[in-house]
């Protein structure tokens, strides 16, 4: 198969996977929201912060590969923001939690 034919075959199958990825997005973002809710109630919950970080990291990698660059860049911003707080000893403050929530809302709107 010629290189251009192989690329076309990948693109055709990728369209199917992209639909599947998009169908799963609300669930991913809802899981992030739940982490934020947990952190709002208990900012020192490291498991919730770590989970939020991992969810953002996973979305960073997947979104761009499915052609959602804007979503991927917001996920990357959330990944970095949560990483910065994971590297600190103190829990995320109110401004940080607002930033997490705002990034998730923007991803939901993308």
């Amino acid at each position: 198969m010629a290189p251009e034919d192989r690329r076309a075959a990948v693109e055709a199958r990728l369209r199917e996977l992209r639909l599947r990825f998009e169908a799963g997005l609300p669930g991913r973002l809802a899981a992030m929201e739940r982490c934020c809710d947990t952190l709002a109630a208990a900012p020192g919950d490291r498991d919730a912060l770590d989970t939020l970080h991992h969810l953002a990291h996973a979305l960073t990698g997947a979104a761009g590969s499915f052609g959602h660059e804007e979503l991927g860049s917001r996920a990357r911003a959330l990944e970095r923001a949560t990483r910065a707080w994971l590297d600190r000893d103190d829990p995320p403050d109110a401004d940080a939690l607002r930033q997490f929530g705002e990034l998730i809302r923007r991803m939901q709107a993308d």
Partner: protein
Amino acid sequence: MTDSRTPAGGDGRADAPLQRILLIDDDADIRLVARLALETGGGFCVRTCGRGADATAAAADFAPQLILLDVMMPGMDGPATLRALRATPTGAVVPVVLMTAKAGPRDRASLRDCDAVDLIAKPFDPATLAERVLAIWRLHGA
């Protein structure tokens, strides 16, 4: 990030064409899209693995010629998985390519000690992933 060793390639032939790739990534979407890109785009036989802890068993069973390994995974991360692979007969010499969203110069430098032959940045372009992997294989595996 270079490695001058000769890979075993499963069948022991250093000049064997690339056929078997083991992909280790915790994200199901990444596994799906990378498998599609490598199988459809490159004609490779791909086995996937969602946890670093399962990688050594998968490698022993599948005898991959090349391993694509996600760096950041919960539990056993990429570097820890690579160390575990290197301690096994199959994984001792197989070329490993790290896949990471952290692919800046500083991150590349910090990954240099991981005993990997190259690094692929995430997100990757599915349309060109197979070509990229084949180019790495020609440099480090063939």
